[in-house]
């Protein structure tokens, strides 16, 4: 009889210990989940930053294409604004690139209007492609260079090239 009482008390203790261990395990698991979810969110943020940098670099590469490149000086980030304006007039270039939006925009000195032959160079943007579709746009800083016919020198200003890719509906 005495043996049976001791045995049931021992079982109770083991049961108690098992519950405590399970509770501790759940507690640590929850803390671990919380910690790793934050760390993974950080990692996703870093991956997003890297992806954006890559896209920005791709956009920037457009400045080096023969249709845009400024060849008067050795400058990888320079766009020939005169060339771009001429490009805008040529409708054949609308389907030359597989973008839904392509625009060159002056950042400083800032001017608002869209460029035409009449207001150039006192204008802000040259839109080459605008398919009016759902677009995800990415931009990169470039130098906008042109030959100033009045003072006869090459002048570069700060601008952006904006590329739009069709978004998935």
């Amino acid at each position, binding site marked *: 009889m005495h043996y049976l009482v001791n045995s049931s008390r021992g079982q109770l203790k083991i049961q108690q210990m098992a519950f*405590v261990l399970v509770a*501790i395990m759940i*507690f640590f698991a929850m*803390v671990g989940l*919380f*910690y790793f979810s*934050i760390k993974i969110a950080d990692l996703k943020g870093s991956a997003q*930053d890297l992806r*954006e*940098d890559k896209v*920005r*670099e791709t956009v*920037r590469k457009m400045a080096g294409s023969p249709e845009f490149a400024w060849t008067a000086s050795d*400058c*990888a*980030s*320079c766009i020939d604004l005169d060339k771009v304006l001429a490009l805008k007039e040529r409708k054949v270039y609308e389907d030359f690139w597989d973008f839904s939006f392509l625009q060159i925009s002056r*950042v*400083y*000195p*800032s001017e608002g209007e869209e460029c035409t032959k009449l207001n150039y160079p006192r204008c802000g943007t040259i839109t080459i492609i605008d398919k009016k579709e759902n677009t995800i746009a990415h931009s*990169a*800083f*470039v*130098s906008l*260079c042109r030959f*100033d016919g009045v*003072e*006869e*020198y*090459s*002048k*570069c*200003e*700060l*601008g952006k090239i904006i590329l739009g890719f069709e978004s998935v509906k």
Partner: protein
Amino acid sequence: MKRGQEEIIGFVMIVVVVTIVLVIFLGLSIRDEPVNKDSREIYQFLESSMEYTTDCAVSFVPDYSTLGELFGDCLAGSKCLNGKDSCDVLEETVPLLIESSWQVGSDRPIKAYEFKSVHSTNSSNSQDTKIIELNSGNCTGSVIGSEYLAPAFPGNIITSLRLCF
């Protein structure tokens, strides 16, 4: 005190100690530390800005200096032909370029910026010579920035821009 009560108190104490240790650990590891990230966008801004043609001609008109050349002119103490000091032209132009590219202010996402340009010789025992340093706002939060290096014999001109959030 009964033995069962002692056990419960012991268990509660262990849980409290473990919780405190975990909270401290999590607090330290998740703390919002000021992050210093290298930004491709800022590098592109610096690289493109260096080509910006200023209204300062040092030798003859219309041989206007680019912003990149003006750092060297400022270091040499050159004056523009219109009488302006090349360093003054830099100090006027750089904030205009930055503030046209990003909206900076206490009520904006970008709270402050730090722009610095120094001339550094390659020898280890020489100190960097400051060309210009411009600050706007109070930089306390996380930071993104980049450096642009241009050769300037003897040594290099290192231009950096940091944007604070």
